[in-house]
């Protein structure tokens, strides 16, 4: 396997995806869940740019990536605000405590 830019990108994407998914599956702290989500989205973003490079539409991919950065930041801000509220209302950041809709 040659060490060209595409292969590096694929490796980075796989690494970020694995980290993100592992975090989402295993972590129970709400703040860490938000961090894991951010890592996952960064992986998707690298994949987007790499795909744009491959198909020769790098500009389009880069502008998409910028859009994702904006949207992603908003997601992070809202999620953290929710986390603060959860901590205030329930007293814990453990996501296992967040099952009140089920009852």
């Amino acid at each position: 396997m040659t060490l060209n830019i595409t292969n590096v990108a694929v490796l980075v994407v796989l690494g970020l995806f694995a980290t993100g998914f592992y975090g989402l599956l295993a972590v129970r702290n709400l703040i860490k869940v938000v961090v894991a989500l951010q890592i996952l989205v960064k992986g998707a973003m690298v994949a987007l740019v790499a795909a744009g490079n491959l198909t020769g539409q790098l500009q389009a991919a880069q502008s998409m990536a910028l859009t994702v950065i904006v949207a992603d930041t908003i997601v992070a801000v809202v999620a953290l605000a929710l986390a603060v509220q959860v901590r205030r209302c329930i007293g814990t950041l453990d996501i296992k405590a967040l099952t009140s809709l089920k009852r």
Partner: protein
Amino acid sequence: MAATLLILSIAIPWFGALVVWLAGDARPRLQHGLAVAFSVLAGAVAVALLPFSSSQILLSIPVGGAFGDFTFAADGLGVFLAVVATVVGSLAVIFSVGYMRGEQQLGRYYALVLFFIGAMVGLVLTTNLLLIFFFWEITALCSYALISFYNDDPKAVAGGIKALIITQLGGVGLLLGALMIFSYTGSFDLRDFIAQAGNIPQTALAVMAFGFLAAAAAKSAQFPFQTWLPDAMEAPTPISALIHAATMVNAGVYLLVRFYPAFAEVPGWRTAVMLVGMLSALLTAIMAMVATDLKRALAYSTVSQLGYMVYAVGAGGLFASQFHLMSHSVFKALLFLSAGAVIHGVGTRDMRLMGGLGQKMPFTRAVFVIGALALAGLPILNGFWSKELVLEAGLVGGPLWMWVVMLVGAGLTACYTFRMVWMVFYGQPRAKLHAHEAGAAMKTALAPLAAGTLLTWLLAGPFSKLLESTLPLHALESHSTLHYLEEVALAPATLIAMVVIALGLAAWWQRARLQGLVNALSGVARAAADSFGFEAINRGIVRATQNSAENLRVTQTGLVSWNIFGIMAGLVLVLVILLLGA
């Protein structure tokens, strides 16, 4: 211009729904006024759309590759039903001003009614199968929410849920058919499909045809799903008139007519359609004979008359079915609304407690009798001409024995209609009821419908011209009104039908002498009161749905990690499918 009108006919009711809802329940007068204004405006726009009807696509909104363009066309079939939905809708809203005075939560009521009217117009004007499904489901949702409007009444809630589940079952058939059509034709436009139907393999076409028949039967409360409609009578009466008599229940018939050119050649489909219509018409006519609740009796007669329309579609009488649909929408809305005036006046729906109300409510009696004469099919009201055309179409396009059964149904219709009129308005009062005549708003809604019942048959010629000129794929032929009148008046079948209807009337007149026969048939009456056992089937469907939903709750753990796991499993599944497909 035409495209603007088309958009407005959907957008005005929907915008009105939002405005009425935002007006707030603290200002009921404003809510009444806004609802009437928006619904009447929508009616005017839909009528203004009539001259623009053509077979061409009027409006096409590109939404990317996956869904096809969102296309709308104002052909005769669609515009006609849009006019029915908005005009009857505005009359029902005007009636509601009197009927719902002093009720709580008018915002919810009017918002749902207006939301429904817009969705119904969208359903009949779009030619995109996905949009048809989308609007179809909105109408079902509004129907459910309005049946359960009195949501502290367990019967109303149960009726609403039953209607929702049964019509959703049909909606699944529609979605399956639509997706199959997409996979075979590569387009969601129903015109493409109808034009290319001949190229689709016979088996696949048969699956679509019967899927659509199931959807239509569930929506139009046809055999074997006919029991949700009587239970839907817990809704406020203007809702029964609008949704469960004049508009939404016609959607099934509309679907069958719309796709008739594609499915007519499927072996057995037309017979199945006729059979569904015939069984619905006959069974519910018998049930109406023994019903004691005024609104339930009317609901049974609605199913029965829808059965006539479905039967006509199966027999190839598309114009007859649509003409009967027009007559039925008008006279059944009239009957329901005047029944609403009665119920509002006396405070009960039980016909056994009524009687002799005619003296106290002369206006209501007059309009109810006009509607009843049309329902019974007596000349020269609109129900007479359209029912005779349906029977004639059945004689030409269907087997003789079915025609005879439909004739018997017509006789039964006459009999139960007169039983109904008699029990409510004539004879001696059977209970001390304080009746009062309908108010001004109610009369304003009833008078145009009564006039329509007397006159809409004059539109036979222009209506057939409209359908013929804008539905090229349906291969219809149009005639002048005079031709239709002559055709009906001179056909020997009409004479036979009149004799049967007269027999039905005579049977009610001489009911005392027929007591022996009535006693002999008491078994049938008991079975009819028990809805011939089909209630059990429908209840089984509802219970199975609710049980499986309850069991599926296990999958909703409420834990984020499990949801992530589900998403990942889905991702892997999609990747595997893509790998295999490639």
